[in-house]
């Protein structure tokens, strides 16, 4: 029973913070609301028995990616005054378009809940032991390839960030 209320509470907070990310005028406020939204999503992960993933999510998103965003916003010195705005018509059409997208997605996902349970229910799949077994047995090659991806991203970011390439 308490998990149901917790789910409603976390969902409400997640949707509200996500809306505040989009609607708040100041980019720094947007980043802070996004951190809060990520924390609520981490709460959802705990609710879904994915404890390790919740910890990784908080570390990677709230700890690394959001700090990167904040640093860039402070380097660019963005604030409320320099914020570019779209016209009212474009904003209204954006709202209508995303509302229609929501309707289409909800309608098309309507029959998806009739999933067939193939495995016996196991509450421990979110723990490190099971995830490590899957990661290093079935997904060993993608795991190694992702290290190349991260290396390439690091080199690319450094090269792009340099003031002039000699």
């Amino acid at each position: 029973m308490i998990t149901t209320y917790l789910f409603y509470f976390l969902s409400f907070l997640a949707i509200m913070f996500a809306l505040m990310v989009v609607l708040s005028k100041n980019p720094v406020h947007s980043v802070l609301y996004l951190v809060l939204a990520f924390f609520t999503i981490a709460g959802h992960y705990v609710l879904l028995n994915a404890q390790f993933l919740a910890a990784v999510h908080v570390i990677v998103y709230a700890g690394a990616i959001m700090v990167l965003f904040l640093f860039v916003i402070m380097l660019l010195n963005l604030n409320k005054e320099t914020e570019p705005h779209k016209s009212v018509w474009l904003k209204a059409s954006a709202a209508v378009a995303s509302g229609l997208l929501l309707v289409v997605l909800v309608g098309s996902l309507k029959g998806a809940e009739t999933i067939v349970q193939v495995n016996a229910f196991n509450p421990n799949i979110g723990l490190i032991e099971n995830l490590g077994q899957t990661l290093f047995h079935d997904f060993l090659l993608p795991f190694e390839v992702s290290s190349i991806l991260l290396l390439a991203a690091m080199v690319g970011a450094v090269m792009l960030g340099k003031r002039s390439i000699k």
Partner: protein
Amino acid sequence: MRGGWRGNKMSAIQTIPINWYLLLSTVLFTIGVLGVLFRRNAIIIFMSIELMLNAVNLLLVAFSSYLSDSKGQVFVFFIMAVAAAEVAVGLAILMMVYRNTKSSDINMLNKLKW
């Protein structure tokens, strides 16, 4: 229903139907799309893309938990790695754009417009 409980861990799986998770991540994804369409600041657009990635992650974790298959959660790891790489490169590009145009407005980036 109660027979499915093994161990005494609290779980959302027995009490909440998966429709609610489908609905929640659909709404979060749509808010991300709204952010991309609604704002002109490139950093906010990046944040909306992160929001969309997180909506998909949430749905992957939900289905992985409901089906008791840990492959979905491993996919979330890979999405996180790709998102981290994407954000690093994207923000570096954004810094370069700002250095050249002195603005983070994406309407400045219309050189490729036909």
